[in-house]
């Protein structure tokens, strides 16, 4: 599978990377003390790492090619993706679903408050991911300012609570609606832009929202933020920390289920079809009588609604908001979840959110590498597996019985 030539080329590649990373990886200077530290061992790591990476990609590509050829020759059938299988075969997914469901249900009872708390965070990202998935994954609109709607939700709870004493449950829908209105407000002028321009404009919008929160002290309390935001109440009872977190956990589980339900229904509807079509070919879509702006706007606003609601939950969970929580990096993390999970794939996004958020939490020793890995994930997924870890499942339609017999005469 690997020829001598590949090894040779691999060596050349690693040599190139040694050269490339030489100044940054090997030399470290302290210009103040005027000391140079030489870290020669890094050179070896770079050489080894790039060599292995090269061979790995080579093998991956060769295998993929061989498989495709075999499929073409009819030797083997196209392998059904394991993600697809997991979802399409009832005898596989039913037990899995039951076990996972039960696991989530008793999670806070068996594990510590801390674990539950982290899981709440992860579930928040699940919902955020599913929300962004409507925009990026399904409708194909690259939104790099998603965090702006998250901020709108968080600040609407913080401010409405501070000024008018509104409770969590009242603000939850308000936050969603406010975020949706922001989405429409922004979407109206920008959604006719081409894909990559749209990405940049949304990025700009996200930054504008953050900068306004940072600078407009009389409105948002500026960079020092708003503290003492109450946690969600339960029938007016005062909950201890542990109970409050458990309560939030179940709340989030419900929220996730609700989101899955809604997103699933939407995807399998007339509107969802239009979103998918829009992602495939805008011009053909319009020629088929689909109102481009309106359809995009719906996706944008719905995505924003979810960000807004999770924003409210965020504020309630953290009991404190400041603009530093809503940087571009946050948008990038959510995007990473969608890309890793598989654009348009609900189950993929859920799995990706759990992996990306829980992993750094448990592997604290590697937390420094977190953003590095996120960046690499985006590149590697795009290059090698653009459909994500669990590709979007094909939808099936119920064919009326009257037509069925005609179809079977293939």
């Amino acid at each position, binding site marked *: 599978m690997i020829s001598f030539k590949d090894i040779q080329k691999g060596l050349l590649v690693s040599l190139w990377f040694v050269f490339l990373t030489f100044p940054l990886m090997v030399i470290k200077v302290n210009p103040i003390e005027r000391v140079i530290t030489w870290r020669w061992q890094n050179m070896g790591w770079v050489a080894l790492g790039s060599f292995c990476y090269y061979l790995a990609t080579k093998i991956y590509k060769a295998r993929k090619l061989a498989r495709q050829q075999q499929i073409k020759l009819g030797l083997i059938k196209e392998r059904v993706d394991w993600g697809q299988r997991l979802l399409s075969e009832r005898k596989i997914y039913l037990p899995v679903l039951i076990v996972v469901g039960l696991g989530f249900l008793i999670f806070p009872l068996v594990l510590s408050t801390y674990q539950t708390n982290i899981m709440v965070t992860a579930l928040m990202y699940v919902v955020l991911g599913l929300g962004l998935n409507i925009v990026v994954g399904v409708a194909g609109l690259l939104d790099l300012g998603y965090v702006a709607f998250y901020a709108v939700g968080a600040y609407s709870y913080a401010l409405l609570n501070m000024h008018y004493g509104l409770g969590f449950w009242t603000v939850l829908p308000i936050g969603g609606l406010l975020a949706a209105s922001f989405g429409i407000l922004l979407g109206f002028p920008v959604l006719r832009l081409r894909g990559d321009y749209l990405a940049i404009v949304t990025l700009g919008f996200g930054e504008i929202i953050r900068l306004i929160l940072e600078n407009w002290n009389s409105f948002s309390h500026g960079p020092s933020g708003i503290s003492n935001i109450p946690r969600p109440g339960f029938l007016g009872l005062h909950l201890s920390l542990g109970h409050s977190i458990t309560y939030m956990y179940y709340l989030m589980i419900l929220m996730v289920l609700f989101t899955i339900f809604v997103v699933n229904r939407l995807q399998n509807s007339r509107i969802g079809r239009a979103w998918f079509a829009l992602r495939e070919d805008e011009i053909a879509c319009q020629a088929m009588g689909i109102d481009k702006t309106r359809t995009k706007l719906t996706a944008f606003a719905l995505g924003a609604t979810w960000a807004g609601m999770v924003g409210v939950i965020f504020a309630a969970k953290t009991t404190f908001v400041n603009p530093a929580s809503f940087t571009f990096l946050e948008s990038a993390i959510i995007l990473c979840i969608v890309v890793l999970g598989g654009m348009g794939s609900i189950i993929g996004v859920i799995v990706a959110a759990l992996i990306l958020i829980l992993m750094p*939490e448990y592997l604290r020793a590697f937390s420094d590498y977190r953003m590095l890995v996120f960046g690499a994930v985006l590149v590697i997924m795009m290059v090698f597996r653009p459909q994500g870890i669990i590709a979007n499942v094909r939808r099936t339609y119920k064919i009326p019985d009257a037509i069925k017999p005609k179809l079977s005469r293939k």
Partner: protein
Amino acid sequence: MKMHHKLLTMITAAALTAGVASGAMAADPIKIGVAGAHSGDLASYGLPTVKAAELVIKDINAKGGINGAKVELLVEDDVCKPEVATNTATKLVSQKVNVVIGHICSGATKAALPIYRDAGVIVMSPSATNPDLTQSGDYPNFYRTIASDDAQARTEVDFAINNLKVKKIAVIHDKGDYGKGLAEFAKKFIEQSGGKAEVVLFEGVTPGAVDYSAVVQKIKRSGAEAVIFGGYHPEASKIVTQIRKKRMKTTFISDDGVKDDTFIKVAGKNAEGVYATGPADVSSNPLTKKYRDKHQKAYKAEPGAFFDNAVAATLALTNALAKAGSTDSAAIAKVLHTQDVATPFGDIRFDKKGDAIGVGFSMYQVKDGKYVQVQ
């Protein structure tokens, strides 16, 4: 079994976290949490605190611990992010920590404090300077071994008006939590000075911008005799450098975030004459010396930011634990408020709000490439 136990606590409710603080058996180790930024771009503010706590606790354990109980450190990273800080705090609380040293950043501290408060855990920060933390009265469980921003702003303004006798002051900040908060206090104090001086310019600069000359031109035009800057040294050195490049003689006064030797090294000759407030010079204090030497020995490097404050916090907390004779937070609080403890800052105790009495700010000036305390 564990699940059963857990269910039981669920039913018996309220005691879950309150139970943490009730007196531990002497044989149980005492758990001290250390929380702050230990990774990411703000790690350099958080790691010295971990080292300080480790050095102090090593000494204490070597002498047999506190009242016979060994001390155990639980170090947790919050990356200075509020949302992570709540996770950190929950983790520490669920590990039944007795007291916490941290957090490092004011925002993260604010997010974490309610969790500790509900669990009855005393928290002492070596570095969170936001005035609200002690002055709002929301966090009775909070203490700190650093003076708050308003005290610092007060020192700067008093110095500018009384010592330098300047009439026109430009207040500049970096739009950050710390810098902007400080600048707002400075502005307030100048306006309250009864006409002795006026604020001719109040403006924020964008950290990381490629060039500050427009703001510097604006300072020049405002006719300010002195600039009070709230923020950290990277921006400060850029602004000072551009001021000097424009051949302006405006006096530059800044804060603790600038009173850092890096500032002098980055700004070079332009740093000469710059004023900055910082904790009183304690380098002659034997405790300061002792721990700085230990650090030097253990890590072959100078201690970093807030090291002395962290040593003070660890000493104050362990002393209170020892004197209180229990891990009950009310007992610890009482000791903190009423009894002096020897720290790198001298003998200190804490006022009702939780600020350390006797930890204040002095003014320094850069002379021949060194910060020298102004008498």
